[in-house]
């Protein structure tokens, strides 16, 4: 793993047990994240995006289990280590969570405790990881709230989540995630629950703060429009497998895999096949309409010369690459 890579996921396999037997949520996925860049994971509901994110912080809980693989993490100036090899109660793991890697969640309405003040929750992140007193933590937290665009930050520290709008809460969650200046920020559909104008503001905020803090971002979404706005690299997932990965330009401009094409085709406003429906909520459900019920992704990923990877037989790749 080179210096430029901050995260390298190899053969990550996650299973969920149930009375009906085990279900594999991730079938040994592998990808790398370049330092300082934003990598997007895109895929429809249930494709395993969140499971990937949760695995990175070892947040998978029973009945889920990480059964194989490694997640190599290389913080700046420190030796690389395998997150999956850390003991569950080790200091290294608790230092990882929230300090080296932080996470922003999909639902700002429920991601904050309803009975603790905003200040309490943001300060907790600092007090957990930094040897500072309450007064200092309060200052840092207030400062961070100001930087994510919350007015009257000092006053609002004493308020409760229900006194904030959805967009404002998501700003609080972002502040909470960034307050320890993590090297890697994982965003699990941070804008899905927000309306479109707020969505754009939050995306801009994440982009700006990423540059300011020199972080790398793993950005999960099911919205290719968002990918186009924020990401440098993209990983396309489907049913626990990676079908295609590469730079945003490569994947969105000239997708090789029929599934990616389908995704693009189902997207109004992006080049590709004609959109069939404009209903935003149903966007991804239309993939099957344009692609039939093809069984994607049983094929292993093949790396191309230009750094792309795609899960297709060589013949199909050649065919797709033909101008």
């Amino acid at each position, binding site marked *: 793993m080179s210096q430029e890579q901050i995260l390298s996921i190899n053969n990550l396999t996650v299973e969920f047990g149930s009375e009906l037997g085990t279900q594999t949520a991730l079938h040994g996925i592998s990808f790398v994240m370049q330092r300082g860049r934003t990598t997007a994971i895109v895929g429809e509901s249930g494709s395993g995006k969140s499971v990937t994110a949760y695995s990175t*912080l070892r947040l998978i809980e029973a009945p889920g289990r990480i059964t194989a693989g490694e997640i190599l993490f290389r913080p700046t100036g420190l030796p690389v280590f395998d997150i999956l090899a850390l003991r569950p109660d080790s200091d290294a793991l608790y230092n990882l969570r*929230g300090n080296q890697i932080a996470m922003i*969640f999909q639902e700002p309405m429920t*991601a904050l*405790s309803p009975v603790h003040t905003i200040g309490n929750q943001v300060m907790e992140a600092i007090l957990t990881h930094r040897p500072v007193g309450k007064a200092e933590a309060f200052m840092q937290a207030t400062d961070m709230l100001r930087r994510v665009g919350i007015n009257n930050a000092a006053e609002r520290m004493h308020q409760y989540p229900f006194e904030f709008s959805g967009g404002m809460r998501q700003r609080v*969650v972002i502040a909470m995630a960034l307050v320890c200046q993590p090297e890697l920020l994982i965003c699990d559909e941070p804008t899905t629950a927000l309306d479109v104008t707020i969505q754009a503001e939050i995306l801009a905020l994440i982009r700006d703060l990423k540059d300011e803090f020199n972080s790398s971002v793993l950005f999960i979404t099911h919205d290719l429009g968002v990918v186009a706005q924020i990401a440098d690299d993209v990983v396309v997932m489907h049913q626990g497998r990676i079908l295609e990965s590469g730079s945003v330009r490569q994947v969105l401009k000239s997708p090789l895999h029929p599934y990616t094409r389908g995704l693009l085709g189902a997207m109004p406003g992006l080049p590709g096949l004609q959109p069939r429906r404009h209903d935003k909520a149903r966007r991804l459900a239309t993939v099957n309409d344009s692609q039939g019920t093809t069984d994607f992704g049983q094929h292993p990923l093949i790396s191309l010369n230009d750094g792309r990877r795609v899960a297709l037989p060589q013949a199909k790749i050649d065919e797709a690459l033909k101008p």
Partner: protein
Amino acid sequence: MSGFILRRLLAMIPTLLIISVIVFILIQLPPGDIISATLASLQQQGMEVSTEQIAALRAQYNLDDPMVVQYLRWITHFVQGDLGYSIKYQQPVNTLIWDRLGYTVLIAVASLLFTWALAIPIGIYSAVRQYGFGDYFFTVVGLLGLAIPNFMLALILMYCGYSWFGVSVGGLFSPELAEAPWSSAKFMDLLKHIWIPMIVIGTAGTASIMRVMRANLLDELSKPYVVTARAKGVRPLKLIMKYPVRIAINPFISTIGWLLPTLISGEAIVSIVLNLPTTGPLLLQALLSQDMYLAGSFIMLLSILTVLGMLLSDILLAALDPRIRYE
């Protein structure tokens, strides 16, 4: 907040007035009154009471006045702090009732604390180790506690207390100290006795509170805000206590007020078995002998406790949950 409490206190007045009317009617409802009830038992023992004597008694206690007049007399005295006169005990209700009410509240509070101290940690443990050995073990023990009748447990504990610790059976005090004025020795004696009723009354609630705590906590454990805190790197023990437990415990604290009346009336059988100087046995006697002022004033006091308890619940809930406080 103080405005809220004041409003609630004012709203209690009509509630209590209505309760007082219902209480009075209910007490008068069974056929006969204290005189005829006493008369019946006297006649059973073969005594003769002349009709003049009966009429004199009835007149003395104004039993022949219309109901409304009797009610008004009772309630006007009640609000002035005069709880009436117990015909059965031939004493003012005031001298009969307050000590007992005090001990009742004491036992109720002790039992409640006992229940919580036991049930809440176990509930937390069961939720965190769901389906583990401990979870099943405590479930079985809890259900046993629920299934064993209170009086039975009382008898067993009395036996244990006597044969192992030599504590005199039953009561709240040793006989030689029962009538003595308060002293540190008497207080120690109380501590030596109170644990039996505390455990007996407490175990009944333990099983259900344990299960409710477990269910509440399981609900909370999977909430997104818990995941958020985990992702922040908060350690497990702190995480569980600060977030899910804090929220799962709300319903208990906010229903303290409702528990008071059940704890007070629930101890009647136990008190009879354990011979405790509490309200339960006295209330039962008062109702059996239709001693209306005693019974009525008693029930009124319990009602006031209940209504105050509800107010207490609301205040606690508002203090605990900011979402309610600000509405």
